[in-house]
């Protein structure tokens, strides 16, 4: 059982004042802070091992290649992939989803086909599908979100009828970044699989916050970002089932992904190299491996419990504020470590500006989820999202600050 108070010492950035107050960082769903060990791994790599991977025959290149491929193996283990060749390094969730949409979509979608999404998708699991739909003639369809405050989650009652024979691929988020809803991914994948439909999970919000086992979930693709799981920015991964990856064309062309090139044609390597054209982001990948070690050191079951307890406490305390509209599941068991809320008379950006004044970092706006916000009759919400280093005392500071802001605007 980690000692949650000691954990704050692992994160150098937390020990600072903002506007004269100790920093209270509650914007973890946007990006998480990095423990010392991840920062040190990155600088140590640059100080000792840096050289291009897979090319050189010299000592440093071999070390860098080993570290990079070691990171791939580490990430594969982190998500329990059967084979490290099923882990493709990308810039993050967004690039991972674009890769699937462009590459799998180009090879498999045609006019008349349907791409099934849900209404709670982040723009990065929505716009790539709009692009490939426009290119192939496929159309989009959405699983509705239930409830005036989206408290009902996805409408599972209509799912089977939405999963009609024209549907070729079903892409959905594991955890909603704007609601905190944890979707029943095992069930969603099982229902799609029973009809031969390929599944894609946006794991941006789940990867660093709970155990993720792609084989137990039984998805075909799983996309995530390193920076939301205590890793550095600029690196993430796409997990893909080997059989599907082997049948997909390259995403980009360049060095490193070909087995033979002549002036007019090329043959490509198998996954993962096929999908990693050009010099990969090996240094950040190595740091991502360190983030996996760090999180497993704490225990992901424990992290999930810690974050969910903070969210449940926040939900309960925020509910006492006059006029507040809390979004997402009312049942704490269905909620991840974030709370999203709105006030009738105070706009999210004013709330965030007032919080910043007290050193509290929040996010306000549509959270890259504009269509659903519109459906809920909102232009945006304020979001407090928690991670391993947050404390119940910080929630008290948040609630006190919000009460002050409300008083200022509504008297």
């Amino acid at each position, binding site marked *: 059982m980690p000692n949650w108070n000691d954990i704050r010492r692992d994160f150098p950035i937390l020990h600072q004042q903002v*506007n004269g107050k100790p920093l209270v960082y509650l914007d973890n769903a946007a990006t998480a802070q990095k423990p010392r060990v991840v920062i040190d791994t990155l600088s140590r790599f640059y100080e000792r091992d840096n050289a291009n991977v897979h090319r050189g025959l010299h000592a440093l290149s071999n070390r860098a290649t080993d570290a990079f491929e070691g990171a791939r193996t580490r990430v594969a283990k982190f998500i329990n992939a059967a084979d490290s060749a099923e882990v493709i390094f990308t810039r993050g969730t967004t690039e991972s989803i674009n890769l699937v949409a462009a590459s799998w979509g180009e090879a498999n979608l045609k006019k008349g086909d349907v791409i099934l999404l849900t209404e709670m998708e982040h723009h990065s699991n929505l716009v790539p599908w709009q692009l490939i739909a426009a290119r192939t003639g496929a159309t989009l369809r959405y699983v509705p979100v239930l409830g005036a405050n989206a408290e009902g989650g996805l409408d599972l009652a209509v799912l089977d009828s939405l999963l009609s024979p024209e549907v070729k691929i079903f892409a959905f988020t594991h955890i909603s970044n704007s609601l905190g809803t944890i979707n029943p991914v095992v069930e969603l994948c099982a229902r799609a699989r029973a009809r031969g439909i390929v599944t894609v999970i946006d794991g941006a919000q789940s990867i660093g916050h709970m155990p993720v086992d792609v084989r137990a979930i039984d998805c075909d693709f799983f996309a995530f970002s390193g920076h939301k799981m205590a890793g550095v920015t600029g690196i993430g991964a796409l997990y893909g089932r080997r059989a599907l990856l082997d049948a997909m064309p390259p995403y980009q062309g360049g060095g490193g992904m070909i087995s033979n090139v002549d002036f007019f044609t090329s043959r490509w390597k198998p996954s993962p190299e096929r999908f990693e054209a050009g010099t990969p982001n090996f240094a950040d990948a190595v740091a991502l491996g360190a983030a996996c070690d760090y999180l497993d050191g704490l225990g992901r079951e424990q992290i999930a419990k810690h974050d969910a307890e903070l969210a449940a406490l926040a939900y309960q305390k925020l509910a006492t504020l006059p006029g507040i509209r809390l979004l997402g599941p009312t049942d704490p068991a269905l909620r991840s470590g974030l709370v999203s809320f709105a006030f009738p008379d*105070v*706009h*999210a*950006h*004013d709330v965030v*500006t*007032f919080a910043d*004044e007290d050193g509290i970092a929040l996010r*306000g*706006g*549509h959270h890259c989820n*504009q269509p659903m*916000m519109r459906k809920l009759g909102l*232009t*945006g919400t304020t979001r407090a999202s928690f991670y391993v280093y947050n404390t119940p005392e910080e929630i008290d500071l948040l609630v006190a600050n919000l009460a002050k802001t409300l008083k*200022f*605007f509504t008297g």
Partner: protein
Amino acid sequence: MSADLSELYQQVILDHNKRPRNRGRLPAANRVAHGDNPSCGDQCSVYLRMDGDRIGDISFDGSGCAISQASASLMTTLLKGRSSAEAAELYKNFHEIVTTGKEPEEISDIAAFAGVHAFPARIKCATLGWHAAIEALKGGPNVTTESHTD
């Protein structure tokens, strides 16, 4: 509350936010333009009824933070009856105030927006309605703050 923050949320701004002037669609409008701030989702439509080159009537509609709503509201009170050249001049003034914090030469409620300059991320909030109004005067339908350097 810090000095910067009380500068930002002046009484004039709070008042316009709470009791917006000229809010809602203008049934007799013959020009309309819509402004969007894609980074935060704020929206503002400005409706004009032009009498020749003069703004005979003006209203706004939309949603956003106190700064964007108050700015659009105050703007409608300033632009009514003005020619397009005068409107452009007023906007130039306003823009200078929110980006530099300089006080206006004449006594005006616009001064309340000088505090915005200390919060660079909020300059786009303050100029959203103005962008839409200038666009409507030019006869264009849509603007987004991303295409402007402020």
